[in-house]
């Protein structure tokens, strides 16, 4: 008799996925050298947190978690726009995207 797969997914599975994605984002943020990849790891962390919000919104049956996700998306959009403009300026001034080389205030 094959094992009966559960009907539905336990909620902590979603939270586990969110935790793993968050840790992957932290790893990318700490280990990578390219400025843009570091920035993308931040976006990965934000996505992991979004998944947590939506999972908890399901748990309590309210829509407030979705609203928080929405606001996180808006803030991430604004942050991506300004952050990428800053990256462009850094590249224009120092001609490098390696984080280790942007290490002094003086050009």
């Amino acid at each position, binding site marked *: 008799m094959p094992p009966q*797969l559960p009907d539905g997914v336990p909620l902590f599975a979603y939270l586990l996925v969110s935790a793993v994605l968050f840790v992957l984002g932290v790893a990318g943020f700490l280990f990578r050298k390219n400025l843009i990849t570091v920035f*993308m790891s931040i976006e990965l962390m934000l996505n992991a947190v979004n998944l947590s919000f*939506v999972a908890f919104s399901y748990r309590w049956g309210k829509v407030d978690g979705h609203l928080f996700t929405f606001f996180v998306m808006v803030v991430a959009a604004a942050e991506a726009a300004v952050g990428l403009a800053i990256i462009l300026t850094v590249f224009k001034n120092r001609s490098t995207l390696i984080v280790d080389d942007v290490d002094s205030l003086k050009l």
Partner: protein
Amino acid sequence: MLDAALFSLFAFIAIACGIVMVTQKHPIASALSLIGVMGSLAILYLLLGAAFIAAAQLIVYAGAIMVLFLFVIMLLNAGQEPPARRTSLLAKLLGIPLLIVLTGALSFVVMLAFGHGTVVKFGTGTPGSAEDVGRALFTTYLLPFEITSVLVLIAILGAVVLARKEMD
């Protein structure tokens, strides 16, 4: 049973794309795997009943923010990362095990708090439609909504000023 199959598939794709994103050398490959993460997260939102948030994730995050990332990578012609000059053996020895410890600690706390909790079945995630989100957005959360519009305006102005050519 279809719930568990779909969840397993897309959670696996999300985590695999996340690992690829953090380990790939070329920024375009990282950007594409991040788009893969966002796409599979959109499916996970759909499984949790958040239809509007799933669509917003695809339209805003995967369809606009990541396009911006891709543009900047293509414009700056960011190639592969050169191999690191000052590698630290201590960082490698301590880093990866500490990450696993962090993951384990988070998972332990999560299982402790929610191990015997709710079960997510597809189709029972109400409220989640555009109507519910819109109603809450314009009544309870009206002030944050207006403030985020001002925030986006500030971001637009900032980006335009920063990326402008020098006026000589």
